[in-house]
């Protein structure tokens, strides 16, 4: 073999190896989808979306309370977490001094790495114990605590992508700083901020561990936010470890619905950002 051929062979081999690794990365996704769809599709029916769980031992019933519960918890988390996260990001990007921002950013990155079960214990101690009971509030708060540092960092990053020229142009027009930030810098980065929020919500939609200590789960409707509330991941967990075949089937169905929900959020993010995160001239 000539040097030329050998070199060519090495190149092809390298390309093949990297491609194989890339395939390996997405392989689990394909496996998960295949398995969840195969096992879950049989139990996904009208009842699943409309009926409450049946009492132990009775077949049938559905997970409507868990589906609604998951949306309620995400709504609460967004209600508490989005303003704090986005405004925190605005501070880091627009106002913060170098030192202060560095520390806040550093700590937010640590927070992003905290295992979610620890958040569950923290909120158990801070909310559940004083309120003397598990509640939707506690579940919403724990999810909010997880998304706040995430949203803060992504918001900061997309705001930083807005060229400084827009800030200067706005201020040179005699526009007050906060207005320039909200209506010009913020509007320019809006897509990116919404994207960050959606991705954060998609991440916590499947959180189970922190909800075990806070929202707890509920086989019935929660009639107020101060009661324990059902959530899809919790329901999947309790059904999957149960001894009943019918519950196993429903756990698979729940997994399928949850997976589709997260996929849907990710797809909408794709559609939303088909152009760019930040508009620029």
């Amino acid at each position, binding site marked *: 073999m000539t040097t030329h051929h050998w070199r060519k062979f090495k190149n092809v081999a390298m390309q093949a190896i990297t491609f194989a690794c890339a395939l390996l990365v997405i392989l689990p996704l394909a496996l998960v989808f295949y398995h969840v769809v195969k096992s879950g599709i049989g139990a996904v029916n009208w009842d699943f979306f409309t009926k409450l769980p049946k009492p132990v031992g009775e077949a049938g019933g559905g997970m409507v309370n868990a589906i609604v519960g998951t949306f309620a918890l995400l709504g609460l988390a967004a209600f508490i977490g989005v303003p704090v996260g986005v405004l925190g990001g605005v501070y880091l990007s627009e106002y913060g001094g170098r030192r202060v921002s560095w520390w806040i950013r550093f700590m937010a990155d640590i927070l992003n790495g905290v295992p979610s079960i620890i958040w569950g214990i923290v909120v158990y101690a801070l909310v559940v114990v004083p309120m003397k009971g598990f509640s939707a509030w506690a579940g919403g708060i724990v999810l909010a605590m997880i998304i706040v540092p995430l949203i803060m960092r992504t918001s900061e990053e997309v705001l930083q992508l807005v060229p400084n020229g827009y800030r*200067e*142009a706005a*201020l040179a027009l005699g*526009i007050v700083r906060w207005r*320039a930030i909200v209506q010009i810098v913020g509007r320019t980065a809006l897509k990116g901020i919404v994207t960050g929020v959606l991705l954060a919500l998609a991440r916590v939609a499947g959180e189970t561990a922190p909800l075990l200590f806070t929202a707890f789960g509920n086989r019935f409707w929660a009639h107020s936010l101060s009661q324990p509330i059902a959530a899809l991941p919790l329901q999947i967990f309790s059904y999957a470890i149960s001894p009943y075949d019918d519950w196993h089937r429903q756990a698979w169905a729940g997994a399928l619905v949850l997976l589709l929900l997260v996929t849907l959020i990710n797809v909408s993010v794709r559609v939303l950002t088909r152009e760019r995160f930040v508009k620029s*001239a």
Partner: protein
Amino acid sequence: MNLIRTSAEENLRAERQPAPASAAALKPPAFTVKNLSISFGQRQVLKSVSMEIRACTVTAIIGPSGCGKSTFLRALNRMHDLVPEARVQGDVRLFGEDSYAKEAEPVVVRRRVGMVFQKSNPFPTMSIADNVTVGLRLNGIRARSLLTERTEQALRMAALWEEVKDRLDAQAISLSGGQQQRLCIARALAVQPQVVLMDEPASALDPLATAKIEDLILELKRDYTIVIVTHNMQQAARMSDETAFFYLGELIEFGPTNRIFTRPKEKRTEDYVTGRFG
């Protein structure tokens, strides 16, 4: 908030009276700068600059890169307020009023002193018309009729009206580079400032677009005081009434453009305008 609104309304009521050229000399100077020094952290960029900029004239600021011309220009509308490590010392008076006085609001100063930047920067989320009126709208002016009127007026002054009048709702970033820069000029004019600062407004444009901007500046001189930073000496010679030459953070020479380019008093000015360095 109140202060701004009041000044916005006053600005609306005030009628703009173009001063005849001969009267320009009698008017108080637009800027009186005394011992202006600016440093960023340890680095001093501007060293005790003093000069008077006459109203309703075009003043060109020339000098090699890094000589402090942009730094000087940005001190005139308090843009350095945004840079935490910037330190501005000395005195800047805008038509006799101290721009850096404790009670002077940077927002009000900037309303009176507009600015056009080197890189055209129309707001990408807004239409052409919205770009022109954004300064008014975000300062609390809502009246539709007034906004429409100002849009046309400002675009006409910026010599852009004929080109965009049929597509005012189009995205501002759909315009060409030269048009975008004229849109930025219209945006600055719409809030009716007294002075317009220009930081190399034509350096990113082709010769035709540059010629348009230059014509426009000569036109604007009737109503506005223009201070323009430029790298292009021909441009300074063509357009300005007075020229200031900056070098290494100092004001080396300042006088009528004609004299600066033909009979400079300083050796360094002569070397620069004849192209021996810079």
